[in-house]
Each structure stands twice: as structure tokens, then as C-alpha cells.
């Protein structure tokens, strides 16, 4: 092969290869973008004020999704109340107190893999432990605990990472001034790590809001007229509502607009929470100067 021919061949290969890569990436972007636009378009036709503020009527073929919004709200808040304090405190122990060594490595490995446990397994766990063994029944409490423990590893992982990124010189400076370890953690480490802790926690909360499988047997109910009055009540929830309307109603096609509307509300909530986390992260990164 002459030099020129070889060169032409090399350039050709490159052009073909890059063409394929562009095609693949284009396909992904168009598909993902198309899905979101499609859901927004379909959902926007169903969502209006009364859809958001009324209860379902006529065997769930008409009316709104207010109880499901409230239910998801309670479950999300409930799971945050469990996962955030416990997760951040655990992360503080792991990063500030625990000695480096094989045990800590093993614990980190466990936490990392815990985050990959399928959510339906958490559903089983919640059913066995909270609903049956501890006798909470199918309730907000049982669902919040299940979701809370589902996102706990995410919160611990993100927080520990954030703590470890705080420069050790900050800790040294504080300790050299005679601060106790606890004072150093509260006044220096925690404030410096806050953006990272918040981002990780909010991403976890976003996940909790959108999960279906863990709450199917622990918290969610097909239909209830009443808004919950105690943590031991069952609730309707947005993800479960979508599943139920789409699979087990008697008028599946008739309720299609309601399904799309519920989908739009759910993705607005989940993506909104995630966008919020991303904004916090970028803003804090810009401010960070160490």
C-alpha cells in the first residue's frame, strides 16, 4: 500500500467509526429527549387544578389524584426523616472516628453493595420486618422505614465522600486551637461538607419519591377516600397509582389521560428534586475555593 493510499484508508476508517458513534449518541439523545417530551405533551392535556386538588371519583375513572400526591409527600418526608439523620451521623462516624483498616474497608464495601440491592428485595424486607414482625401493618410508617433504609446507603456514601473531601488542614487548624473533635466536626467539617451532603441526600430523596416496588406491600393502597390521619394509615401514592391505573383497572383505556397526568406529576416531582440537587452542587462548587 502506498503512503497516500494508507493515509486515505486510515481517514476513511475514522470517518466511518465516528459516523457510527454519532449515530448511536444521536439515537440515545433523541430517544431520551423524545420520551420526556412525549410524556409532557400527553400529561399536560390531563393536568389542571382540579386534577391536582381533587380525589378520584366514579371508580377512579374521573377526578384527581390529590390523595396520591399527599401520600407520596408523606412517604418522602418520612423516609428523609429516617435516612438523613441516621445516614449523616453514620457517615460522620465512618469518616471522622473509625480507624482505617480492613473492617472499615469491609463496611464500605457492604454499604456500596447495599445500594445495589434490588428495590423489590427491600419491599420483602419491609414486609417481613415492619409490616409483620413489628406489627406496623401496611402503613406510612412501614413504607417510610422501608424507603428510608433503601436510600440510606446513598446518603451515607455521598456524605462520607463529602466529609473526606474537607481538607485535613481545616481539622488540624481547629484541633490546634484546642477544639474538641466534636466541636471540630460541628463547626468546621459539617459546614464545609454541607453541599456534598445535601446533594447526595436530595438525590436519595428523589429516588424514594419515585419507587414503587418497596411500597407495594408496605404502604400503598389502591384507593382510599380518606387522607391519612396517623402514621399507621395506608396511603395512595403516585407511583403505585400509575401502576394500578395502567394494569388493573376495569377501564384502562378510558383512564389513559389520568395515567398520563399522574406520570407528568410524578416526573415533575422527581426530576424537580434532582434538578434542585444539581443546582445546589454547581452553585456550591463555584463558591468553593479550596
Amino acid at each position, binding site marked *: 500500500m502506498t503512503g497516500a493510499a494508507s493515509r486515505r484508508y486510515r481517514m476513511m476508517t475514522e470517518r466511518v467509526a465516528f459516523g457510527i458513534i454519532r449515530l448511536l449518541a444521536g439515537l440515545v439523545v433523541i430517544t431520551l429527549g423524545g420520551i420526556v417530551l412525549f410524556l409532557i405533551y400527553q400529561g399536560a392535556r390531563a393536568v389542571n387544578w382540579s386534577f391536582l386538588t381533587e380525589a378520584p371519583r366514579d371508580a377512579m375513572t374521573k377526578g384527581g389524584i390529590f390523595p396520591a400526591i399527599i401520600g407520596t409527600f408523606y412517604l418522602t418526608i418520612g423516609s428523609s426523616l429516617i435516612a438523613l439523620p441516621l445516614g449523616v451521623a453514620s457517615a460522620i462516624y465512618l469518616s471522622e472516628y473509625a*480507624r*482505617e483498616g480492613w473492617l472499615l474497608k469491609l463496611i464500605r464495601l457492604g454499604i456500596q453493595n447495599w445500594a445495589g440491592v434490588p428495590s423489590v428485595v427491600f419491599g420483602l424486607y419491609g414486609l417481613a420486618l415492619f409490616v409483620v414482625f413489628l406489627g406496623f401493618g401496611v402503613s406510612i410508617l412501614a413504607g417510610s422505614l422501608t424507603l428510608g433504609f433503601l436510600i440510606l446507603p446513598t446518603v451515607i456514601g455521598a456524605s462520607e465522600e463529602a466529609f473526606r473531601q474537607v*481538607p485535613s*488542614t*481545616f*481539622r*488540624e*487548624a*481547629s*484541633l*490546634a*486551637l*484546642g*477544639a*474538641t473533635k466534636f*466541636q471540630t466536626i460541628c*463547626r*468546621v467539617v459539617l*459546614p*464545609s461538607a454541607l453541599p456534598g451532603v445535601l446533594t447526595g441526600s436530595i438525590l436519595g430523596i428523589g429516588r424514594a419519591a419515585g419507587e414503587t416496588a418497596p411500597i407495594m406491600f408496605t404502604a400503598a393502597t389502591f384507593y382510599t377516600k380518606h387522607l391519612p390521619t396517623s402514621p399507621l394509615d395506608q396511603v395512595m401514592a403516585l407511583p403505585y397509582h400509575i401502576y394500578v391505573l395502567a394494569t388493573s383497572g376495569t377501564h384502562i383505556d378510558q383512564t389513559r389521560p389520568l395515567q398520563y397526568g399522574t406520570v407528568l406529576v410524578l416526573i415533575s416531582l422527581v426530576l424537580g428534586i434532582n434538578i434542585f440537587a444539581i443546582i445546589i452542587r454547581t452553585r456550591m462548587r463555584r463558591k*468553593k*475555593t*479550596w
Partner: protein
Amino acid sequence: MVATSDIVIEVRDLDFYYGDIKALRGVSLNIKRNQVTALIGPSGCGKSTFLRLLNRMNDLIPGTRVEGQVMFEGQNLYDEDVNPVDIRRRIGMVFQKPNPFPKSIFNNVAYGPRLTGIKDKKKLDELVVRSLKQAAIWEEVKNSLDKSALSLSGGQQQRLCIARALAMAPEVLLMDEPTSALDPIATSRIEELVEVLKKDYTVVIVTHNMQQAARVSDDTAFFYMGEMVEMGNTERLFTKPEKQQTEHYITGRFG
């Protein structure tokens, strides 16, 4: 012979281990009140390690061990009932690289006093102003106390860190190569400051810069390979060193 009361810190036969590695061997020396003591030597000689032993900062490194005694005002710092937190309040420290907290200038200086439970705004104000003046940075920052400490230049940050240490009213101030990250002008300001500080404080300064040791210190200790080779009056040590290793070092034959 110096009277005992003039000695603030008396170190006796100090050994220090990182795991199995013996980093300091049988160091004994005295730190005199209201004087500047310089610790010099080639890098890795153990001078910074030694400095951090004086306020138990090495406690923070896992797997380390100390043998021997560090008598501070008559008490061994390494006695079991001594709380390192109390020691660090009485023996302040300034680090190699300026390390202000990502807080405002005011809050950096007020950090220490607040730890001790001072909440009174007036008292805090007074302490902050006094410390900033002492550290010779007041004039530069008096109109921007609410600004982030990280907005200051390196030299200003280091003087702020000194102010932060002074706000605790320590009895001894340890300085670990405090000018190594600074330009010559900022360095000379810190050196001038050290001269003034010794009126009120006892200062121990680690430096890799022999001229700096000669300029600021009264006593100098020369460390080499984990041992304290020679200590004495700075002028004497630099002009008539007793040990050959010292002479080699100060005449620039190694290090």
C-alpha cells in the same frame, strides 16, 4: 545556667515512632520563656515532627508512639490524665500553609474563643480586634471583617492564622515553617511580627531557612536524622558550631 522558672518546656529523652520507624531519638532540650527558639535541619530530620509533639498534634496520626517526657510548666504533657485539648488551648500553632477556615475573617479569629464558651458579642469583638492588631493585620482588614478569609492574599492569610492562634491567648506559639508558602515581602512581615510577639509569648519556630533562623531566633536547635545534634544561642551556633554536622549544614555542605 538558666533558672528553672525561665524554662517553659523541658523535653527529656524523647523518642517517637511512626509504626516501627523511629523518627526521633533521645531528644532533650529546653525552651526558654519569652524567647524565640528556632528548629533547623535538612528536610526529613524530624524538626516538624518534634514541633507537633509539643502540642500533641501527632496524637492525630494513628500508629504513632511516644516515649520520654515533655514537661510543660512542670507537668508532663504525655501523662495519662492530660487532655490534649487543654494543652492545645495553651500552646497555639501556626502551620506551614496558611489554613484559614472557609468563614469570614471575624469568624476565623472568633472561632477559638467561641470554643471556650465566650458568646458575649462585645467581648468577642474586643478579642478579635486585639488579636488582629497583635498579628499586625488589623489595618488591612478592619473594613472587611465580614469578608471571606479565603479572599485574602497568602501572607495576609498567614497573619490571620497567627491572629486566630493569638485569640486563645496561648502561653507558647508553635510555628511550623510559617513562611514557606509566602513571598519575600510577606515573609519579612511575619518575621517582624515574630520579633514583637516574643515580648508576650514564647515562640518555637521550625524553618528550613537558616537566614530566617538567624534573623528571628534567640536559641537554635539543629536536628539531623531524627536526633537533636546541637542547641545553643543562635549567634554562637551559627558562628562557632561545636559539632561537625552542624558546621557542615550551616555552611551549606548538605541539606
